């Protein structure tokens, strides 16, 4: 599931033009041949490097997921399970203000603020929404800055661009927050550090965000501009019940609900090829899928490092925890597996054969057939 050495020309053909780019931001920093523009990666010039970081770190190039799983999670990769699991719980921030600003339980913001406060890390690579609600990679150094980053943007945030911009010589201990594809890219960087900028060995903590899909800003933004003054947007949400609307909270007009179906055309088509709903390569993953209790997050603690932080945060009274009901656990696992089946099905449809699943390679043929039998 790995090994090919390629450069930006291949990235252009096999990822960007092939419609696989998720906008994780891993490739673009430190490369003068690529840039981010309005939610897209654009290639500016012809690069001749045949063994480039862009290809090496892209989560949509063939990946040795097993190797990474052993290395970062300490367990072998099991395609049928939602990643390494130490515990799955319902968690929320004790601070109501954090919950209000964040998504559901505000756990990610609360945990990271705590990690900054207790000195586990010096800064957090995350994304911050600009005045118009569009996300950009950002490095938060204080709890206050972190709170400004709370809440989902539902767009690809190119967070890893901000990570790569940190000079290689910088010794800050970092946490990185991101969705599945970004966690995969980060795992790839840990396996082979970038030539210039962003030292993955400094990453002490990774917090994954559950992700169903991301929106393409070039389609989503004009849509948004039609319904409101984007500079007055406070927050976006897709409420669990009934789960059919996309809510935009603004300073002036309060909540504006858009039917979710109206938003769907703006979903990045690349997301249909993504297998990783729960960010399996993180230390801790958090989200709402599988948990329809308002004001709570579902949190998967994956690594001893993540478990340690959770334990200390509970002890410090930062977060509160309750067990996830069995039925919810079943639902979470089913959604995660369903995502994988969809990804395989869509990749097979794209290539025209189950033999070629694009960037996902090395799965036992029997497994693929079994997963796709219905």
């Amino acid at each position, binding site marked *: 599931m790995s090994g090919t050495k390629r450069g930006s020309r291949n990235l252009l053909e096999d990822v960007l033009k092939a419609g696989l780019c998720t906008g994780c931001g891993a490739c673009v920093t430190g*490369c*003068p*041949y690529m840039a981010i523009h309005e939610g897209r990666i*654009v290639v500016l010039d012809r690069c001749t490097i045949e*063994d480039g970081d862009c290809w090496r770190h892209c989560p949509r190039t063939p990946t040795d997921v097993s190797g990474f799983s052993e290395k970062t999670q300490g367990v072998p990769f099991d395609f049928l399970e939602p990643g390494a699991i130490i515990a799955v719980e319902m968690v929320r921030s004790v601070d109501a203000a954090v919950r209000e600003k964040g998504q559901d339980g505000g756990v990610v913001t609360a945990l990271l603020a705590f990690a900054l406060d207790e000195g586990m890390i010096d800064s957090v690579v995350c994304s911050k929404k600009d005045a118009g609600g569009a996300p950009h990679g950002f490095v938060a150094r204080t709890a206050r800055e972190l709170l400004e980053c709370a809440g989902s943007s539902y767009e690809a945030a190119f967070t890893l661009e901000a990570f790569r911009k940190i000079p290689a010589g910088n010794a800050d201990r970092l946490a990185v927050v991101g969705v599945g594809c970004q966690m995969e890219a980060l795992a790839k960087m840990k396996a082979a550090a970038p030539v210039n900028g962003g030292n993955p060995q400094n990453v002490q903590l990774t917090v994954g965000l559950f992700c169903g899909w991301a929106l393409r800003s070039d389609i989503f933004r004009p849509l948004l501009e039609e319904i409101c003054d984007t500079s007055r947007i406070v927050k976006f949400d897709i409420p669990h019940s009934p789960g059919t609307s996309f809510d935009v909270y603004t300073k002036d007009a309060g909540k504006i609900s858009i039917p979710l179906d109206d938003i769907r055309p703006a979903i990045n088509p690349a997301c249909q090829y993504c297998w990783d709903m729960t960010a399996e390569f993180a230390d801790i993953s958090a989200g709402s899928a599988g948990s329809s209790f308002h004001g709570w997050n579902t949190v998967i603690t994956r690594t001893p490092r993540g478990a340690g932080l959770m334990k200390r945060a509970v002890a410090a009274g930062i977060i509160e925890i309750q067990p996830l009901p069995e039925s919810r656990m079943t639902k979470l696992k089913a959604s995660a597996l369903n995502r994988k089946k969809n990804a395989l099905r869509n990749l097979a449809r794209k290539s025209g054969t189950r033999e070629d699943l694009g960037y996902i390679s090395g799965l036992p043929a029997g497994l693929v057939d079994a997963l796709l039998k219905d």
Partner: protein
Amino acid sequence: MADIAIDNPGGVVLLMGNEAIARGAIEAGIGVAAAYPGSPTSEIIPTIAAVAGKRKIHVEWSSNEKVATEVAAAASLAGIRSFAVMKQNGLNVASDFIVNLNMTGIGSAGMVIFVADDPGGMTSSNEQDSREVAKWFDNPLLEAQNAQEAKEMVTWGFELSEKVNLPVFLRGVTRLCYTRGNVALGKLPSGGEKKAFFPEIWDMYNPAKSRFTAGPSQVAHKNLHEKLKKARALFEDSPFNSYAGPENPELLIISSGVCTSYSLEAIEELDVADRVGALKLGTVWPMPEKLIEKRLLSTQKVLFVEETDPFIERSVMEFAAGRLPEMGGLAFYGKRSGHLAPFNEQSADLVIAALADILNIPLAPRDPGYRKKAEEAMALVPARPINMCAGCPHRATFWAVKNAIARDGRNGFVCGDIGCYSMAFAAPGFYQARTMHAMGSGIGMANGFGSLGDYGFDQPVLAVSGDSTFYHAALPALVNGIYNQSNFTLLILDNSATAMTGFQPHPGTGMLATGAPAPIVDMEGLCRSLGAEVRVCDPFDLEETTDAILAMMQKKSGARVIIMRHICQLLKAKRKIPGECKMRVDDEKCLGDSCGCDQLCTRIFGCPGLMWDGAAKKAVIDEAICVGCGLCADICPAGAIIREEARP
């Protein structure tokens, strides 16, 4: 030459072809000379301008060749000899006027049009044979072999023009214009005061009478043909035509212009002067048929040697076809037979090969190792791909254009145009120009592309124009685009000069051809007054320029203009304006050919002030070439190119 108007009849001086042509016009006593710059003719106007005050000549750089020809024609109509100068493309621009001027005829004073073709397109976007226009328009045309003859032909051209009452063409080629030769000077006119007066004033009792309004064209055209007959008769005895060789040669070469020199060299080289005769034709159109007839009847084989089209070849064959009983046995060689090509430049070598083939002379190399030696010598010559100068503002503009088009992502493209920035079709402009035709035609084509919205056309369209080109031919297209609401963005690359042809002033520079001050035709105000949205950028501010291009590209309708204003680096050097800074590469930071750079500055950006040190695998500044513009510091991804203290 220090003084082109030196009064030294019979004195021999070394002159460039273009200088000799200027001298010929001065000896002819011209009062007006007008042109638009175009290589290979660009030196003629400055040469005349240098003595304009002393010789009382009105010299001007006109906004285009049609205007130049009209300016010259008006002088002729007012009794003042006049001279218009253009390259082959310029003749195309001027031709609509000339073909009408032929109908009315000129005034009492002669008018000569010098047009230079550029075989091989060394300094041109196209290759064409202007002699065809003389035949098409029914104009007399002379073609000069060398500088001396060019001077004499210009002077005699005025006499001919007055005799036949038509403008007279003199055709040259690049090799004539730029070759220096000994020229024996003629007499300068006394320079007596001549009053310009247009005689065709309105007569209320005979109001319709004027020679200079188009009358019934069938009458005018008939008169024109009468005039041509007269010219043909004058050409039969012209000393510009000559024959050398045996009375009944085995092969007759008929040549014109510089090809006469190639032919004579070929005859000498092959030592066939006793077998081959050479007829040099200086009065090319209308063809002196009696002279041609006499020579055709003296031989069995004819080889035509001429630059570009088989013009004489076809004319002679056409003539011979009308004399089939006497000339049916003639064999013709030239471009039709494939011995020579109707494209690219001719040379003595090509004529030698043709002659050897026709005469069955074996051609052996001088020594067996000659080719190998030549190839070895060629290998010593470093490749010199075309490039924009160090610090050229066009490089900055096209860098921004490239990045803006890539960012926009809708397959936008640039309609190219004529000037230094034509190089945008190749690496120096990052291959951004996707079309390139005539002066101003990029904007016209952008008009067209930008009008295809009804057919689902959704690509952003950019057009480029130089500042001089803007006044030359871009304006009507811009007006059209605004009027017809076409959707495009025009980038005017204003580098303060007609740079490609040698920094001639233009209406935007505030200077005349003589160097005297002139009012500035305000390009920005002009565009605004037409109704275009206008922005002015310094392309060296790459970020702002890229954003401006992007913003303009993304507008949904209307013609927009961005003026990219930054002085040409060569002009800066001429004016001794120092560079902004001294550049240095920090070896520690330079990423060289590794991931994250891949020689961006030397491989893609391509400023000649940067060099790739293959041993060290680092970029270095070429101190001799770098002008210290500082732009490379902005594109270096590693911050390794450093601007140091301002130059003293």
